[in-house]
């Protein structure tokens, strides 16, 4: 559905993008992750045809954005970092304008109503955009992107400025949209990408540093397996018992959590849950909880970003 090949972009002499390539199939949600100034917005602006690249190509549904921009743009709904809103118009007038601007061939009234319902702005339709709060402005921007049901949605930090309840709603909406649309969304919130996206792309200094499925990136982060346990009993004994289990590298005492119960973190080379269970089944100490700790995307993200910069500085 989206094919990005070798995008390179210079701002004067600054290399903003360096051979960025990726592709997306229909119905996938891609999370674009990276620190500020990494090239997320630049990439999105190039895909939507707002900027042009110095080299490389972008194909939407097989249509080259440079060769046939009008057809390609018809297939894209774009929410830029700052929603493109005309402050002096009412929400209704603005959406009608965007509807016509995008040359949508759907019954206007019903279509606008459905979209307003979807992003929950029906109650502010008559208001002038200037008077809307940040959250509403963001949602009007999202509504504008959804006009005409484009197969590709490109959302640049769609949840910025929303309150926690709205964030949850919008994420759910994006996930729902992802069933029929191909979505690219950028964010510097890792939890967001983790919650919404199938695929994740980490970009730093204009280069793609990681391109994987969200599930596999969290699993293959490191070779050690970590467990968190809460065990009732004598602290010292538990500690030494855990250490004696075959395969355990490190036991960390995280302190008392309830009266007489202690929390431990166990790092091991392989899955030791059964061994721990058997070891404690023989004693009178009770395991109250035991669960594996997935290395969070946050850790991996920081590893990748800081790791890259370290090696770059070294070289």
């Amino acid at each position, binding site marked *: 559905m989206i094919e990005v090949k070798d995008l390179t972009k210079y*701002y004067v002499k600054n290399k903003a993008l360096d051979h960025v390539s990726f592709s997306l199939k229909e119905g996938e949600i891609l999370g674009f992750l990276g620190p500020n100034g990494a090239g997320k917005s630049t990439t999105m*602006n190039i895909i*939507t*045809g*707002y*900027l*042009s690249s110095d080299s490389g190509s972008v194909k939407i549904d097989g249509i080259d954005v440079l060769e046939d*921009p*009008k*057809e390609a*743009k*018809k297939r*894209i709904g*774009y929410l*830029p970092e*700052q929603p*493109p*809103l*005309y*402050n*002096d*118009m009412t929400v209704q007038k603005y959406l009608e*304008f*965007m509807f*016509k*601007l*995008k*040359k949508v061939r759907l019954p206007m009234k019903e279509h606008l109503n459905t979209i307003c319902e979807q992003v929950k702005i029906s109650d502010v339709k008559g208001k002038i955009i200037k008077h809307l709060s940040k959250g509403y402005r963001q949602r009007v921007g999202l509504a*504008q992107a959804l006009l005409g049901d484009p197969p590709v949605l490109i959302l640049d930090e769609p949840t910025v400025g929303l309150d926690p309840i709205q964030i949850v709603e919008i994420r759910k909406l994006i996930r729902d949209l992802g069933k029929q649309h191909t979505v690219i969304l950028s964010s510097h919130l890792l939890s967001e990408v983790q919650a919404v996206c199938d695929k994740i792309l980490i970009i730093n200094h204009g280069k793609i540093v990681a391109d994987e499925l969200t599930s596999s990136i969290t699993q293959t982060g490191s070779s050690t397996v970590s467990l968190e346990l809460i065990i009732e009993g004598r602290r010292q004994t538990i500690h030494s018992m855990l250490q004696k289990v075959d395969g355990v590298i490190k036991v960390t005492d995280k302190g008392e959590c309830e009266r007489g119960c202690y929390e431990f973190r166990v790092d091991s080379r392989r899955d030791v849950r059964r061994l721990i269970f058997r070891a404690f089944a023989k004693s009178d100490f009770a395991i109250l909880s035991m669960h594996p700790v997935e290395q969070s995307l946050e850790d991996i993200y920081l590893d990748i970003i800081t790791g890259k910069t370290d090696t770059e500085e070294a070289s």
Partner: protein
Amino acid sequence: MSAIFKREFGSYFSSPVGYAVLAAYMFFSGIFFYVQCLFLGSSSMTMVFQQMFFIVLFVIPLITMRTFSEEKRQKTEQALLTAPVGIPSIVGAKFLSSLAMFALCLCSYIIEGVALSFMTQPDWSVIIGNVFAMAILGSSFIAMGLFISSLTESAIVAAIVSFVLNVLISIMDTISGTVSWDALTNITNAISFQKKYNNFSLGLISLSDVMFFVSVTFIFLFLTDRVIERRRWA
């Protein structure tokens, strides 16, 4: 294209700009009409049109100042440029909406002509010819104003620069009159707006003068298109 035109034209009246421009234009045209026609008792509006030339110089920058600068400042140009419309249609729509706004101003002459008709028989062919002349002069200034507006993010800067440019172009032949250098005089005469416009207001409509204003309009619209296109590559 029609969507942009409608929004643009509507935006003049969702802010005070449209009303202010209209009021200022009609105010001056009314004063000149009063002095030249009613006070002096003449049925010829030629002098009104000649004096209005200088009002057009500062009214048109007010009409065009926000066209592109405001889009840039509010980041709404991202919506326009990622929509399935070409840059020429965007420029064209904005040009036409500014021209339509200016055409509203020109209605003042029709009102004045009607006022005259109560007292005497006005020469409608001269009035219509002059309105046409002013429209075609206006379209050149509008194209220049759009071009300036596309270069900046500030409406105020756009207004001031286009105003200065308009004045400079208009008084060029006055300046060159003080210098006795034939080559310079020839050049300034060739590009003088005022000289050609004054021919119109005297009732001398020549094809070459019309073509001059039409070409200036197209050149600046083309340059505007290039400025916007170029920004994509910056």
